[in-house]
């Protein structure tokens, strides 16, 4: 499922807890950034719905509480 039809959809996943930069590789190159409020934002392209669910399963396996999952416009400078 790909709404833009041309490439991948971008998603932003908000988590409680702070994850290190090092996890970027683990999340297949998505950007991992932390917030002062002790939450983490994972952002990047996701190939399709199956890939998104795979990503959510990996977060589940880490025991990280999920705050939100949002589809966002593609970032110009990825």
């Amino acid at each position, binding site marked *: 499922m790909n709404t833009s039809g041309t490439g991948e959809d971008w998603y932003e996943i908000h988590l409680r807890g*702070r*994850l*290190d930069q090092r*996890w*970027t590789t*683990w999340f297949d190159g998505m950007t991992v950034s932390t917030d002062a409020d002790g939450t983490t934002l994972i952002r990047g392209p996701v190939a399709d719905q199956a890939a998104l669910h795979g990503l959510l399963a990996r977060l589940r*396996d*880490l*025991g990280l509480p999920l705050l939100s999952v949002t589809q966002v416009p593609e970032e110009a400078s990825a």
Partner: protein
Amino acid sequence: MPLALVETKFFHPRPRHGMVPRPRLDQVLGTRQTRLTLVSAPAGFGKTTLLAAWLAGAADTEVGTRRIAWVSLDESDTGAVAFWSYVLTALERAAPGVGAEGLDLLESGQPVETVLATVLNELSVLPDDVDLVLDDYHLAESPEIQPGVAFLLEHLPPQVHLVISTRADPALPLARLRARGELTEVRAGDLRFTNEEATTYLADATGLELDARDVEALEARTEGWIASLQLAAISLRDRDDPSRFIAGFAGDDRYVVDYLVEEVLDRQPEEVRDFLLGTAILERLTGPLCDAVTETSGSGQMLESLERRNLFVVPLDDQRRWYRYHHLFADVLRAHLLGEHTDRVAGLHRRASAWFHESGEPLDAVRHALAAGDVARAADLVELAIPALRVVRREAVIASWAEALPDDVLRNRPVLAIGLVGGLMSGNQFAGVAERLDDVERQLGLPEAELVIVDRGEFARVPAALEMYRAALALNIAGDPAATIAHAERAFDRAAEDDHLVRAAASALSGLASWTLGDLDAAHDRYLVALAGLEQAGHIADVLGCTIAVGDFATTQGRLGDAQRTFERSLELAEKEGPALRGSADMHVGLSEVARARNDLEAAAAHLRRSEELGEEAELPQNPYRSRVAAAGLARAAGDLDGALSLLEEAVRVYVGDYSPDVRPVPAQLARVQAAIGDLATAREWARSRGVSASDELTYLREYEHVTLARLHLAEHALEGSEPALREATGLLERLAEAAEAGGRIGPLIEVLGLQALAQQAGGDQPGALDPLERALALAEPEGHVRVFLDEGDPMAGLLGALAGRRPEWGYLRDLVEAAHGPSTTTSPSPAKTAIPVDPPRLALVDPLSERELVVLRLLATDLDGPSIARELVVSLNTVRTHTKHVYTKLGVNNRRSAVTKAHQLGLLNRSGG
């Protein structure tokens, strides 16, 4: 066997010492169990530990003991065959006799529901309680396995309980189960350590007297999450100032596990740290494997010391041989590895792949090669692994590799490409196969220097195999027997003279196509070539499989002598090979059928007993239904039509098809018995559902069904006086006789001529009836057919008597008349003794069954499940289970199927006793 099931997955973890007692959870789980127990929580909440402790503490039930079937699932179990192989094997080990038949059915490609129905049938009368534990269910849950699990859950008998531990709620009807009180749930909120539990745990694990505020701070920061408390405890050990550490931890907002793992890693000596990171890619750990992957030595001791120090390794067996990391810890370790040593990862996977390859574990070898990004290596490994996988029928694995390997690596690897085609086709995945075969053909035109061939021995086979698969495609997809024969003959010609196997397979395929065309002479011919080739290739087990088909031809052509010789010769071959070779039981079943056709009922019964004695190991997948069909024939010969009926009903249930055309469909055999006992409505329903009618064009493949229809019409005339039915039967039989004669099928011709005689007699023309009967006898005499006439009962006995008046000198006819008036005719009430012993003696039991047990045994032979049997007898299920247990003990069996078979042999199920 290189692909045995992974033993460690059946290991049922034992509770570890120093565990925090959790009476509040034990209370939730209780000792009286619901249909489903669900332990659903994220990683690191102690799900497995809880189940291990609970099951260890669970008491005996009032009837039997409690048995545990445990499976630790992983990602490789999302396919139905793999998943159910593990589940049924675990059940079979926990309660021998419960899963074996299901596993056979599964292996022979039966639908999962059929497999599970068989297993449930055994489970429902099991005397003991069974807990089926599926640990880490989220790893295996997939659309492929989910319907089967739902079906199993829905039909679970009350003494069997499903226990699921998972990180995500399963797609099962939880709300409905909850509403009915059939669900026990333990969730994250229940599993979190309370303040009290955390205090006990930390005191035990750290040996420190922590002050209450510190414990509270830790508990708040980890939110009672057990895995992180464990990590915290490890960090706390040997600290001079635990309070300071706790304050630092509590004041940090980083991901708890990240923070703690880093703490733990930082405090490890360099070699331990390296070891942990280097082995993080492994799903299972053992000393030699870790040595190879980390290029060090002493990993075995390292693992033991990690376990002693509680550093997140979990033993997978009792011998301290295999371990795994706690999942959560492994994930964080891998993140560290990827983040800090990206360059090392491929090398680690490559070495793991090499180790698994050397240890004969191709699945893991290929998986690690793919993870290393080394597609060429993975392709090499797959090519080498395919022949062994084919032998153990794990073609689904081959098919999954066909998806994992990119197309361009196959462009110059003909052996690999053809091997993958074999895997795909055996799983009925035909899409794109023709294109793959065309590409292999293209490769065969290239100079050999441009090809990559790892398995030289297989390369010579590619040209012939290519045509073989095309032949199979033509048969299965295009439904074009003529093209099948053309491709198969080409495969035969292309095969090297000493490649007996391919030549045999090509001959068999060509024979099969001729068979479906009704050209029995050509089919017989090709199958004999196939038999000889298989024998020369030393594939005796396949010789036995092929013999069944050859025996069927011979029988269809009325050649009982040929059939007998073929079965005997193959049996001899099998016995030379060793005791109880797979397929030898089936030879006895074939010999039993031949003996029965000649009315040597004693020999027929002896062969069936021998088949049973040889056991399941000696059976081909078809044996369960074929042996019941043979037993039904014997029951019928003994005048026990009800027994025949119930045996055939069972045969329908355990029916397993193969590539051969189904020329004597069991439902049609069932309809014949129904017609014979006057259950015309059911027999008509069969005819309607099969869409068989007297005006059909007659083909060989449906001959048996059309003869069955003629019998049904004759029965309609006899019981309902329907003249149109008699006319239909007469017309149909005439056409059937012509077709059988034209096709040289003497067996069906004898039967049809006999039926024509009966039809004429039913129409009031007895003198006219004697002509076809005389012809039938003339055809039947050389091979000594008897039962084909005797099974027709009194009307036939009368006709035979009348014919004897016309031809008093005919010895064969005199014998038939004599046999027809013995006790074994269908309807003759005469108790006169003859030389034919019908029932084996009924005294074989040392400890005879009580009347009540006999009643239970008869019900076990029906379709009823445990609760229905209890209702029927108006007793509790426990009483039924106790009786069942006694019946099993007295018969010396451990499951329902064997009990019923044994009962038939001992003649315990005949009507007379009830």
